[in-house]
């Protein structure tokens, strides 16, 4: 490992950057100093400049992405303007968001060798370093695999191993978990934690889901609109009002504690109060409070839909290959007006099942009837008049030159009239009016997602299906989209979406369906379905489970519900 750098391993001084062709600066006066061995979380909403800052640290900005660069970045004693990206690569390892597009070889071993070959190491050293990297990251068993045989989490760990082999002092990870399922994300973060803890590698991590990493990091830097707005220890930053103002998702346990502090006298939490960063800490800190909340008569608000059945799935089996079924006898009925979350790990069959609802997949055995049409008989085009489908990646939707045409395209191909009005209406609903004449692909990720949703909502399908609509979005956008969907459902239409994000499913919708290995394992009203479901319980619920013996209802899923219970409980307790 390179030993010439000591403290202040990463320094930026008055850093400004504006991408060429852009009017607004991506970074404004960013000055940070990160010490060797620190684990730093870089937080903030989408478009706040986190990725740009990360790319400044290994020289991709300004060497790869050109623009107006001001100030100074020094990493391991190297000024990034003078050093090449290749030189910096020996000091700064970079792991990107998309697991697919950073693996360039057809075999894991060769993937790890790639960087080492580039810097011209002799063969025997490369061999040694490959072993070391595979072992450190815990992927010895993957050495001969082709990337297409790997899951997302495995790909990310291969990416980490491949930069680790270069013996960097600093590891920068740009949302490495945003495309992974909870298990994959946990595997990746565990590795990162170990690298920091055991090898003393300085880590700079960008992550939207603070609840996953809060307890691992030494320091949180919050960015908004290209500026650093908060910088400090996790507990300190969590109490900072400015964090909430950026629309960042505060981990539910933290959020609950802060709100309890705000609404009640601090003494309800007794002395020695601190902000919990994990569920375990939450249990400890909030236990005294919940002990006093006994015997409340709280019941969760549930919507029981009694409309007619619009989707009927009867014992469906499906597989692309004869001997490898993906769906193994799935049955599900969905009523008009329901808002259903479909949860499950990657490859549990969620997308495969959703595709059955519009005839893209036809059951090998069993039957799917949607709006009275049997999918084995109706064509996709016929079903598409009743069912709207928003795919995972909005890029796959975008074909037109302007947002207007994009939204009008399906209307035209289905032969609707008064297209102009319909498009206008839906653009207004999704706050896209000002992008009407923009090129859709030049928009940000969240805006693209909204355009994709708009193009489907425009023809007002009776059933709306979304495959991971919130993936990779920041908190405020997630909430916005979920609210739009809820509004759409309230007009007597049906919404089904798949997600990994249990917290979102806990806050919105009214029914949770959990799949595992091609079967539906849980299908219930969300409070019953998500409570005590181990991997698929929201944070608050996992905490509350240990308070059941005080009479705290076990169906509490969200911060709001927990506050209601506390409120009732404390009032009854005669406070």
């Amino acid at each position, binding site marked *: 490992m390179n030993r010439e750098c000591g403290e202040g391993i990463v320094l930026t001084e008055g850093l400004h950057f504006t991408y060429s062709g852009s009017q607004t600066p991506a970074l404004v006066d960013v000055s940070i100093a990160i010490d060797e061995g620190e684990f730093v979380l870089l937080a903030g909403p989408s478009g706040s400049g986190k990725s740009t800052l990360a790319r400044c640290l*290994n020289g*991709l900005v300004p*060497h*790869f992405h050109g623009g107006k660069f001001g100030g100074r970045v020094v990493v391991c004693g190297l000024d990034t303007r003078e050093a*090449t*990206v*290749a*030189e910096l*690569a020996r000091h700064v*390892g*970079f792991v*990107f968001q998309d697991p*697919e*597009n*950073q*693996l*360039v*070889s*057809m*075999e894991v*071993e*060769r993937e790890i*060798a*790639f*960087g*080492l*070959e*580039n*810097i*011209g190491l*002799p*063969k025997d050293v*490369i061999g040694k370093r490959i072993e070391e990297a595979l072992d450190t990251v815990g992927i010895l068993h993957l050495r001969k695999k082709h*990337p*297409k045989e790997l899951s997302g989490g495995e790909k990310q760990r291969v990416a980490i191993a*491949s*930069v680790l082999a*270069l013996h960097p002092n600093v590891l920068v990870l740009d949302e490495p978990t945003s495309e992974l399922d909870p298990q994959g994300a946990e595997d990746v973060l565990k590795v990162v934690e170990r690298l920091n803890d055991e090898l003393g590698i300085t880590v700079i991590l960008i992550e939207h889901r603070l609840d996953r990493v809060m307890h691992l990091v030494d320091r949180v830097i919050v960015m908004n609109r290209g500026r650093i707005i908060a910088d400090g220890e996790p507990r300190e930053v969590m109490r900072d009002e400015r964090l909430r103002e950026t629309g960042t998702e505060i981990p539910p346990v933290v959020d609950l504690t802060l709100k309890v502090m705000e609404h009640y006298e601090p003494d309800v939490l007794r002395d020695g109060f601190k902000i919990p960063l994990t569920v375990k800490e939450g249990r400890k800190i909030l236990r005294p409070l919940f002990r006093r909340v006994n015997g409340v008569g709280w019941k969760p608000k549930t919507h029981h839909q009694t409309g007619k059945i619009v989707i009927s799935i009867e014992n469906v089996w499906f597989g692309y290959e004869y001997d490898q079924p993906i769906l193994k006898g799935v049955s599900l009925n969905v009523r008009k007006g329901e808002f259903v979350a479909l949860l499950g790990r990657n490859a549990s069959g969620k997308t495969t099942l959703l*595709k059955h609802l*519009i005839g*893209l997949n036809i059951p090998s055995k069993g039957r799917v009837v949607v709006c009275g049409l049997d999918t084995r008989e109706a*064509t*996709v*085009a016929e079903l*598409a*008049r009743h*069912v*709207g*489908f928003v*795919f995972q990646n909005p*890029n*796959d*939707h*975008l*074909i037109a030159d302007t947002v207007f045409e994009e939204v009008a*395209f*399906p209307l035209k*191909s*289905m032969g609707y009239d008064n297209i102009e009005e319909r498009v206008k209406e839906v653009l207004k609903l999704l706050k896209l009016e000002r992008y009407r004449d923009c090129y859709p692909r030049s928009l940000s990720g969240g805006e693209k997602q909204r355009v994709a949703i708009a193009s*489907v909502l425009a023809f007002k399908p009776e059933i709306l299906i979304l495959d991971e609509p919130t993936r990779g979005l920041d908190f405020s956008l997630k909430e916005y989209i979920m609210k739009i969907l809820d509004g759409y459902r309230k007009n007597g239409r049906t919404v089904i979406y798949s997600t990994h994000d249990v917290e979102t499913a806990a806050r919105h919708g009214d029914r949770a369906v959990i799949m595992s290995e091609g079967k539906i394992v849980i299908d219930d009203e969300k409070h019953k379905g998500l409570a005590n479901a181990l991997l698929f319980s929201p944070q608050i619920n996992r905490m509350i489970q240990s308070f059941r013996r005080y009479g705290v209802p076990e169906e509490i899923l969200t911060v709001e519900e927990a506050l209601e219970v506390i409120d009732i409980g404390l009032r009854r307790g005669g406070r």
Partner: protein
Amino acid sequence: MMVYKEANTPIHRMNAMPKIIWAITILILSLIFDNPVVLILLFVATIPPAVFGKIIKEWSFFVKFGLFFIPVIVLLNIAFNHNGEHILYSLGYDLPFFGSPVITLEALFYGIMMGVRLLVILSAFAIITVSVHPDDILMLMLKMKVPYKSVLIVSLSSRFIPTLLSDVETITDVQRTRGLELDRGSIIKRIKNRFPVLVPLLANSLERSVEIAEAMEARAFGENKKRTFYKELKLSNADKLVSVFIFSTLLVGIIARFLGYGIYEYYPVLSPIELESIILGVLLFSMLVIPYVSVWITYNSSEPLAHGGHQ
């Protein structure tokens, strides 16, 4: 279906170098000879490796593809080639551009043999595609002093073919759910219908290539220092010997062709098959099959050892 799959057969375990020289030899031989006997025997010579390598299923996919083209080649040949004396059918009057169309036995036969030639080439390369690890081909290119950047481009394209295919699938699905019917209407309409699939596919690929470039630079790609290679194609003496042997088949063929053996005339009348050309065909056939037969025999006689063997 049509890509490399790891398998433990004598054919898969054989070094890439002799296999690729073998395919190139067959390619060249099939191009310099149009003798029916030689062409047919060349095709037969590609069957044993497919059998020994247990890749008949994948191999036949390529061959079926070739069979599909034979009628096309035959039709084109009889439509435009009016040489030959044995007239099977004559239209009897002149057509503009085509002249007076006649179908001759010779043109028909020639067309069929050209189809066989296509089949030979497809069959030989099917065996390479299915039984040689793509990395081995790249390492062979490096060994032959092909510049690294060119090899890298080939490597990256094959790496991302599965990604591209799944992209095509998803985007097609997206457009179908938007009411696009790909298989309806006239051919022109159908081609036009594909545009909504093509546009996002190209745009996605472009964006992907930028991301790949970023990721490569972040791992020191483009450093000026001389690059090293972790894995290189290893050639044992036996591999070299087999390669030389196969290469000598090519030389035998070329020399025979210069000396005038194996020449066959299709026009004006089909010339008779001479004993010489049968001998030449059998000789080339045996030389092309011997290496595979011998690895197969050695493999089977040392079966218990082979599993614990190298790699």
